[in-house]
């Protein structure tokens, strides 16, 4: 079929008198040149489009006409709706962030001498497969902060800003004056009174997680009108408990431990232990029980669950941006290079600062390039498959689902060719505006 029409059975030629055949070719020769391409395009691209459109209106077996049932499924099935929702998130965020970063990089690299080296580094991920990028980011997003670099950095930043005076796994030892108070807190068995001293010994904190500023515990000294006490680790590695419930010289104070004085279920006063474990309460705490609240004993911060249900899509979008920001940067840098420099220089002479130059001149002049880059990335993002397939672990793959992945699952795992075809046609419909744009732009060029 393709051969016949190529040879001239179809449609009259639009007038294009300019670039005539220089060779006075016979049509059969032209047909021979075109034949391989048109046969392959016809069989592998055009025919599948028709097939998918028709197939999308038939049921699972393909025997009976199903009308719009498959399309209705797209918007009612929970799994597909998640995919649809995620695709919207992808299309809105991934291209815009990648383009914005590309713009910033392209403008800033012009200001340093090693700009080319920087561009090479950022552009490099374009050359590798999404599979390799996927494996790279599975490593980056490893949940364990000791293994995944994302969480290692995140926990580092978090612990720098948030106080981490936790004593995980601390608990009362034998014959302790403390008992569990529910929810992970501990409370004294009896009440305290003014002028007395209190001992709050615990055991079980691993030596390497003890606060760095913890010093040798010091016994409390009684003081008129106050309640003084010490909270410490009643255990030394290699030496054991020593004297039970009393301070030995090698035992460390629980520096930073929070202590609450509780009367009738209400907190009347709080204190924080010094580096040597000592603390002091006023007469207000007279007759209260002392409680070590649960926040003292929470596990150390372990970072974010990057590939868990709520963060998996943003995390994968992050890896996509890592791959494609370089593409945006290179195209935008090419646009920048062809920009009239004297315009920027003139604005600077007139006293515009860098931000004004960027905002009022660079960006408006680059607008067409930015549009092309964003649209290109949008088409690309619509079809995103590999990264999601590789990075999302089985447990959160449903939450990370996108249309291309759903199509693969429906068509090849769930044996639902009707629904898969409907998804395919839906994807095709979404790119038709771009198809139209390409044709219009080219028609002008071809007719030139």
């Amino acid at each position, binding site marked *: 079929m393709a051969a016949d029409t190529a040879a001239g059975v179809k449609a009259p*030629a639009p007038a294009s008198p300019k670039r005539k055949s220089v060779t006075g*070719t016979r049509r059969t020769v032209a047909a021979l040149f075109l034949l391989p391409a048109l046969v392959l395009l016809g069989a592998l691209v055009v025919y599948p489009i028709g097939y998918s459109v028709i197939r999308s209106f038939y049921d699972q077996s393909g025997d009976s006409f199903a009308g719009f049932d498959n399309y209705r499924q797209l918007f009612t099935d929970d799994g597909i709706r998640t995919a649809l929702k995620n695709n919207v998130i992808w299309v809105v965020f991934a291209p815009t962030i990648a383009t914005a970063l590309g713009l910033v990089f392209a403008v800033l690299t012009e200001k340093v001498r090693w700009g080319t080296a920087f561009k090479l580094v950022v552009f490099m991920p374009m050359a590798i497969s999404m599979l390799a990028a996927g494996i790279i980011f599975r*490593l980056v997003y490893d949940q364990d902060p000791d293994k995944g670099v994302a969480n290692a950095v995140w926990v580092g930043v978090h612990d720098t800003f948030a106080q981490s005076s936790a004593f995980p796994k601390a608990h009362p030892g034998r014959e302790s004056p403390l008992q569990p108070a529910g929810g992970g807190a501990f409370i004294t068995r009896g009440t305290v009174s003014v002028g007395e001293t209190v001992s709050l010994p615990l055991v079980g904190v691993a030596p390497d997680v003890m606060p760095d500023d913890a010093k040798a515990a010091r016994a409390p000294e009684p003081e008129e009108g106050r309640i003084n006490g010490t909270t410490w680790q009643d255990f030394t590695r290699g030496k054991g408990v020593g004297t039970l419930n009393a301070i030995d010289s090698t035992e460390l104070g629980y520096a930073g431990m929070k202590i609450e004085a509780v009367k009738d279920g209400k907190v009347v006063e709080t204190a924080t232990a010094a580096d040597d474990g000592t603390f002091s309460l006023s007469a207000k705490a007279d007759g209260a029980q002392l409680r070590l609240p649960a926040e003292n004993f929470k596990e150390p911060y372990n970072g974010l669950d990057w590939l868990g249900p709520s963060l998996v899509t943003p995390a994968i979008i992050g890896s996509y941006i890592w791959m494609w920001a370089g593409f945006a940067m290179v195209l935008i840098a090419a646009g920048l290079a062809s920009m009239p420099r004297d315009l920027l220089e003139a604005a600077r002479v007139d006293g515009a600062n860098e931000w004004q130059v960027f905002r009022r001149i660079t960006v408006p002049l680059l607008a067409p390039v930015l549009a092309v880059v964003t649209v290109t990335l949008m088409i690309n993002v619509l079809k995103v498959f590999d990264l999601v397939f590789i990075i999302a672990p089985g447990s959160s793959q449903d939450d990370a689902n996108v249309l291309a992945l759903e199509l693969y699952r429906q068509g090849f795992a769930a044996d639902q060719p009707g629904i898969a075809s409907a998804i395919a046609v839906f994807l095709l419909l979404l790119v038709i505006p771009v*198809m139209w744009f390409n044709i219009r732009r080219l028609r002008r060029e071809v007719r030139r």
Partner: protein
Amino acid sequence: MSAGAGSVTKAAPPPVQEVRAEQSLGSRIAGWVSGGFVRVFLIVVGLFWLVPTIGLLLASLRAPEDMASSGWWNVFTEPSQLTFGAYEALLKNDDITGSLLNTVYITVPATVLVVVIGALAGYAFAWMEFPGRDWWFLGVVALLVVPVQVALLPVAELFGKLGIFGSLTGVILFHVGFGLPFAVFLLRNFFAEIPRELLEAARLDGAGEMRLFVRVVMPLAGPAIAALGIFQFLWVWNDMLVALIFTDSDSQPITVALTSQVRQFGSNIEVLAPGAFISMVIPLIVFFAFQRQFVSGVMAGAVK
């Protein structure tokens, strides 16, 4: 406009320098600080971009026991952990070496065929006369943005009927089919720029159509063919989805072989990390050796 712009630039420098000299000390310090800020920012971003890849490389150079207990950055404090053990084991693994060969068997023909078939069609669209020529060309351009997903099911069925489902031939043909719109688009536009006189002169010398194409047009198209070839080469080499569907265990490329390993991620990092790195080596070499052509291919293919 551009000519005028050029002359303005030539005339401009003296006043600009005067203005710069008048800048206050404060604004010069501010400029220096912001220049420093730009540098620091770009260095941080550059590290951000490099670290994931370096992480993979170092992960592939550590023993699995080390990877199970700590992060790859520990090699900086304990360089003795570095070992080529994983690579040695991998190169003895027939599944992996076989799939690497398959990647080559798929990529090379798929690239050569796209260039040859695309050039033939591109030449016809640029320089031959036949009815509806421009409409046909626009039709091909329209196919540029068709997502491969549309063709997966129908072509799988078609290949099944033809008996080439699961074979190298099938996956190569698929890549050629979806590479052609871009190839025809790029090459036709390039061929159209060839000076008419050149072709007419060759014609007068008695060159036939085929001779003209092979001896005159193709040699002139070097840059376009390089850009297209590199683009298509990387595209096919890096593909996973098409091969995932159209190959079986005998014809699968490295990407598919590794994909089946990803499902047990963590327990087999000694296969995944070096495997991913080996699969990246050729694309990276091609990328660094042919940056210019790759960039021009990417720019021309911005519509794909």
